[in-house]
């Protein structure tokens, strides 16, 4: 009996140790965010805090589009076409902004959703790995963007500047985050999504229409980025040939910095999106304020990215990137 109690105590201790490690892992991004923020404020002698509005202004587009990719990555897929989706949708928003602003928003969302459906069709129906499909669409639609915006940028109607206010941009961002959070945490759709990331075949055998879910997620990711394109145009007023360039990489880095396991599944948390996007933008701006060159910044980003992937990769589940 004494022996049994003894093992119980050992078990408890081991459990505590394990859950401590898990908590540490889960809180690393947020601790990182706080530390990075304090360090950069100290290094820039408070410059970062004074220019917080400028920094906040940069976060909307990345944060909104990251939500869509977050869903895609939760089910174990990847999406590299986000930058091109942003580009096409931005051009559509510009062209339609002269007609009607509501139409411009809807147009952007529909354009994004259509490209998402294009991705989804090849991924789900033609069974091509998602990162191959989306790399192809990235180049394909980047080609269209260059064709349409190379000679001169596509300018939006001057009316868009009326919408360039913090309440509107912040409002759209918060609305997207809130709705997505509820869908992710408290609906069947959200739970199915995580389960597909953890083991698609068993989920199919539990009666989930996995193909339909996968297709819809790509459409949704496209649509959300289409909405982000409106915010982008409101901020910038026109779409150049480079609009949305490298957005996909920024999103990927942001999500990984937020602690997102790269193969999706059960360990994914919604906080990953928010903390990650904040951390990415603060880090980026901090480095710029420190006076680093673009080349040096890319180098540092690469190193940080690698470290975070190494920490958060779910090694039991790595083989299932779809």
């Amino acid at each position: 009996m004494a022996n049994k109690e003894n093992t119980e105590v050992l078990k408890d201790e081991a459990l505590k140790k394990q859950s401590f490690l898990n908590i540490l892992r889960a809180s690393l991004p947020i601790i990182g965010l706080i530390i990075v923020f304090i360090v950069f404020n100290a290094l820039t002698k408070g410059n970062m805090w004074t220019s917080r509005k400028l920094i906040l202004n940069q976060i909307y587009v990345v944060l909104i589009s990251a939500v869509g990719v977050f869903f895609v990555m939760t089910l174990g897929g990847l999406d590299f076409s986000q930058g091109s989706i942003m580009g096409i949708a931005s051009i559509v928003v510009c062209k339609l902004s002269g007609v009607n602003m509501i139409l411009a928003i809807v147009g952007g969302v529909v354009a994004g959703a259509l490209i998402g459906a294009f991705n989804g069709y090849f991924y789900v129906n033609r069974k091509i790995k998602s990162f191959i499909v989306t790399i192809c669409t990235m180049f394909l639609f980047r080609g269209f963007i260059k064709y349409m915006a190379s000679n001169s940028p596509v300018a939006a109607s001057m009316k868009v500047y009326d919408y360039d206010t913090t309440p509107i941009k912040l409002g759209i961002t918060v609305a997207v985050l809130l709705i997505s959070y509820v869908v992710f945490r408290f609906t069947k759709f959200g739970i199915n999504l995580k389960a597909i990331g953890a083991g698609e075949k068993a989920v199919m055998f539990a009666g989930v229409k996995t193909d339909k879910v996968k297709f819809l997620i790509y459409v949704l990711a496209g649509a959300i980025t289409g909405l982000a394109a409106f915010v982008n145009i409101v901020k910038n007023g026109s779409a150049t040939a480079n609009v949305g360039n490298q957005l996909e990489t920024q999103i990927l880095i942001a999500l990984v910095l937020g602690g997102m396991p790269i193969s999706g599944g059960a360990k994914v948390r919604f906080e990953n999106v928010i903390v990650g996007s904040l951390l990415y933008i603060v880090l980026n701006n901090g480095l710029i304020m420190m006076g680093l060159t673009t080349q040096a910044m890319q180098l540092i980003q690469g190193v940080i990215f690698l470290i975070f992937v190494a920490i958060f990769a779910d090694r039991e589940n790595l083989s299932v990137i779809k």
Partner: protein
Amino acid sequence: MGEIRLQVIDVSKNFGITKALKNVSFNIDKGEIHALIGENGSGKSTLTNSLTGIYKKDSGKFILDGKEINPANQVEANNEGVSIIVQELGTLDGLTVAENIFLGHEDRFVKFGIKNTNAMNKEANELLKKYGFERIKASDMIENYNFEDRKLVEIVKATYFDPKIVVIDETTTALSREGREELYKQMNRIKESGNSVIFISHDLPEVLKMSDTITVLRDGVFIDTVRSSAIDEEGLKKLMVGREVTGGYYRSDYGEKVSSEVVMSVKNVTVPGLISDVSFDLHKGEILGFGGLSESGMHEVGKACFGASFDREGSVTLSDGTKINDIPTAIKHSIAYTSKDRDNESLVMNQSIRDNICLPSLTALANKLHLLSDRRLKKFANKYAETMSTKMQSVDQFVSNLSGGNKQKVVLARWLGKDSDILLLDSPTRGIDVKVKQDIYQLMDKMRKEGKSIIMISEELMELIGMCDRIIIMKDGKINGELERNKDMDENSLIAKMV
């Protein structure tokens, strides 16, 4: 007692907080078949995996012929004279039969950095011939052969170099009758040559028949080593469980009339290459068994009835006229399915017990706004996990950490929660110990009495005979006979129709 071949001294192994082995010590003699038995999670496989270098033990020693061995992987274990045949498929796709046999030992055929494929194939063919497996050709790709033949290749791979110890880990559950006979033959051959076999099996009659000595483990602790001639099945169960196993194992009723009400009608179902023209009716409150060799197509019958078969022809119709053609429709109409491939098709491994249990019931658990609350899901999962008396820390635990029996309990808890009326159970007790088996049989009997209908597909003839109202025997993808529940039925009457 003969001379000692292997001494296991104070071996311990922990997985995180789980103590899989606690100071286990015993000896294995030369020229004996030494069985290792115990319930799921008792540490049998952990012990043999530590011996063969698949896991690294935490403490203790393995002493083989007076010399301590400490292999870091299977190839090193082979070189020390220890080999293993595992439960699941242990051969690799994309390689030839010969390459599989000599995997990790290719150096023997390499000269100046170039592999002599001909010499390798020649030697492999000679080995296959020696074992009497001439129909397997060394130069063929391994995936051209079925599960059974691949197991035979594994036997050659594990034994051709005359290892001093061969571990056979629950291999027989995956084999058909002929495959088992072949394995038994090889086990006896190894024994006669003076080498030793460590034999892990859940099938107690088989253990008693084949082994000379039996070591029992329980919860990672050594319980006893006994001579097979000095103990019977009941005695072994008692040692494994730690108390008397009371009550009937299977159902005990005979001659009960099954309702004539048909709940599911299967007509002319064909799945190309697997089953052809299968028709039968399932009645209310009936347990309908499907038996046959593992390649007979019986496993596909379960999938076909669940709407999960690819390219199925024919029809599966419920009493209300609903046609079952896809999985969501099947589940919506109260059909449950447990797969033979539990880890891939029945469970989401890297997911909590909670989500695994709730998965098909999410629509029912949502409120009017289609929202789900964590509390409600947890309560639901807890209720059914506890009904099944699943051993777990909490429902938030990942399924991948559970033992085989507890995994199956989670699968069954899921369908209990869904309150399914038709259950398609494919190999429900595969790789599961006595105690959990008994629980599952009792659950099936209870469900039957509640008017639920069960199709039980199994490779274990005794459980089909013990549990089913009717047994359909499959052969080569077709129905080859049907037997009614009968007190005097024995395995031979089934085998006659299987082969």
